């Protein structure tokens, strides 16, 4: 029995890792969408986290916990720099600035010797595994559920529904926007670091426009009524191309189509459950 499980886990190793990593990325998208914002920086933040962690491990041999912390801190700083000026501007600016960030980082990674240029970095030791990845995912989910069922969660949903009305109730809009962006960056950075340390190899192309939009498709497919929605979306969109061969080649086409269909016809996504927002029995 255990041998079977062992073999199974081995053959599908990277797929199972991907489920966890993409789940984390979906959550990083969720936190921003949950307040009614659109940030497309998740892939860029992931790239920052991945490269930071890979470089710290490869060049400095830093202890892994420190590496993980750094891989969250660096994207957080980037989020602050990009996010702070857009706080009082229309949401469009944030969306554009984050797309721009992705492109610029990709160019930076490709052109820099430090990051291995277009070939990326390889030989990253395998320091993460199932336990770590899925524990992070579980912890993140739990944290989101706890926050959703609280005053903060109510403020977030209020902002998403009607920002002006939410402001009129005392919700400090800029603070929430910036916090959501920073949390999103940290989660994506963590996902990037974990991914780097199970894949042994990272390259700039993994963190470009395609990746950013794919992450969006996870969240839109699953729905953002609860933190579980985007994770379900990530699971489906990670597994589907494996199960349906033709889908694999047209994966990107499919993701794009998902977004279009979700926005036009399924604004609530697949997971119909809406998490309640009270922290005690109402």
């Amino acid at each position, binding site marked *: 029995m255990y041998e079977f499980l062992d073999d199974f886990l081995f053959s599908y190793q990277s797929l199972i890792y991907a489920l966890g990593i993409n789940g984390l990325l979906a959550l990083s998208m969720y936190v921003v969408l949950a307040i*009614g*914002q*659109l940030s*497309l920086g998740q892939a860029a933040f992931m790239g920052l986290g991945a490269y930071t962690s890979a470089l710290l491990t490869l060049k400095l041999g830093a202890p892994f916990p420190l590496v993980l912390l750094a891989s969250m801190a660096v994207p957080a700083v980037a989020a602050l*720099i*990009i996010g*702070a*000026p*857009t*706080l*009082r*501007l*229309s*949401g*469009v*600016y944030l*969306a*554009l*600035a984050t*797309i*721009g*960030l992705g*492109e*610029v980082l990709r*160019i*930076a990674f490709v*052109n820099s010797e430090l990051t291995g240029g277009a070939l990326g970095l390889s030989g990253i030791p395998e320091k993460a595994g199932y336990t770590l990845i899925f524990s992070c995912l579980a912890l993140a989910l739990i944290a989101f559920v706890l926050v959703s069922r609280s005053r903060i969660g109510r403020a977030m949903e209020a902002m998403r529904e009607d*920002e*002006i009305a939410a*402001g009129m109730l005392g919700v400090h*809009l800029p603070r929430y926007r910036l916090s959501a962006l920073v949390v999103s960056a940290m989660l994506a950075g963590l996902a990037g670091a974990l991914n780097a340390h199970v894949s042994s190899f990272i390259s700039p192309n993994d963190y470009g*426009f*395609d990746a950013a*939009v*794919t992450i*969006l*498709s996870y969240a*839109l497919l699953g729905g953002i009524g609860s933190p579980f929605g985007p994770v379900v979306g990530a699971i489906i969109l990670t597994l589907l191309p494996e199960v349906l061969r033709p889908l694999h*080649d*047209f994966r*990107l*086409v499919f*993701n*794009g*189509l*998902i*977004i*279009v269909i*979700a*926005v*036009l016809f399924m*604004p609530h996504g697949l997971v119909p459950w809406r998490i309640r927002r009270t922290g005690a029995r109402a």
Partner: protein
Amino acid sequence: MLAQQLVNGIISGATYALFALGFTLMFGVLNVVNLTYGVYFSTGALIALYATRHFVAPILIALPLAAIATGLIAVVIDGLLLTPLRRKKAPELASLMVTLGATLLLYSLMTAFIGTDIQRFPPAAIDPSAIEIGTVRVSRSQMLIVGTAFVMVVLLLALMRGTRLGLAIRALAENPDVARLMGVDVTLVTFFVSFVSGTLGAAAGILIGLNYNAIQPYMGEAMMLKGFAVIIIGGLGDIRGALIAGLILGLLEGLTAGYVTSTLKDAVGFLLLVLTLWFRPVGLFGRAAIKRA
């Protein structure tokens, strides 16, 4: 050396301006950041490429043909994706997301059918002649770019300020509901603006494609970052802003490439964008883009 750099800068600047014109028009009037705009850039170039290659059409015919075809594609996309959202009064981020999805979808489709290899115009289509003034060398296609950019700006400004259609467009940009009440055929004007944006994007794609003679499906995407920078620096929705910001960006990039390092060239736009957001978010000519309380 400096003179050539400056001239090159003006040429790339005109390129960016030409690209940004349709983009900013779409944003300024239709109040939507249509991210499929980059696709129009690529589509225009690709259609022109196939027209010259398979139908041996001279470039003077292929160009307008490709531009018009792309304009029509833009109208279809607007009608399929954006009009339903407008009707539902969906939040503007919904338009952003749907055009994002469409962008991914269309690029991937194009790549699937055409491949990612760089394609080139047949030699017959390219005019290699150039003029030389002193130490500066400018090719005919480069002059065409600059000329087209300026002509388009003048035409657009004339349209917007001097014609009834322009008035209708500006009314629509101010307030679609009031415009409708005043008799503006919102649907028609919207489609017209989409059409013009599409043709502008395509024209930019064709001219730039001709200039660098390197065409592949994702070329539009590379331009988009520059496009964002230009429209934000120039001011969302402002035509003069697009031209001036484009020229500034081109010149700064040229100077960076010449005097600092050419690898940082592409980062200049993004840097300017962030600086603009920090210190003057409305851009050079923008009006009250700050929407929030």
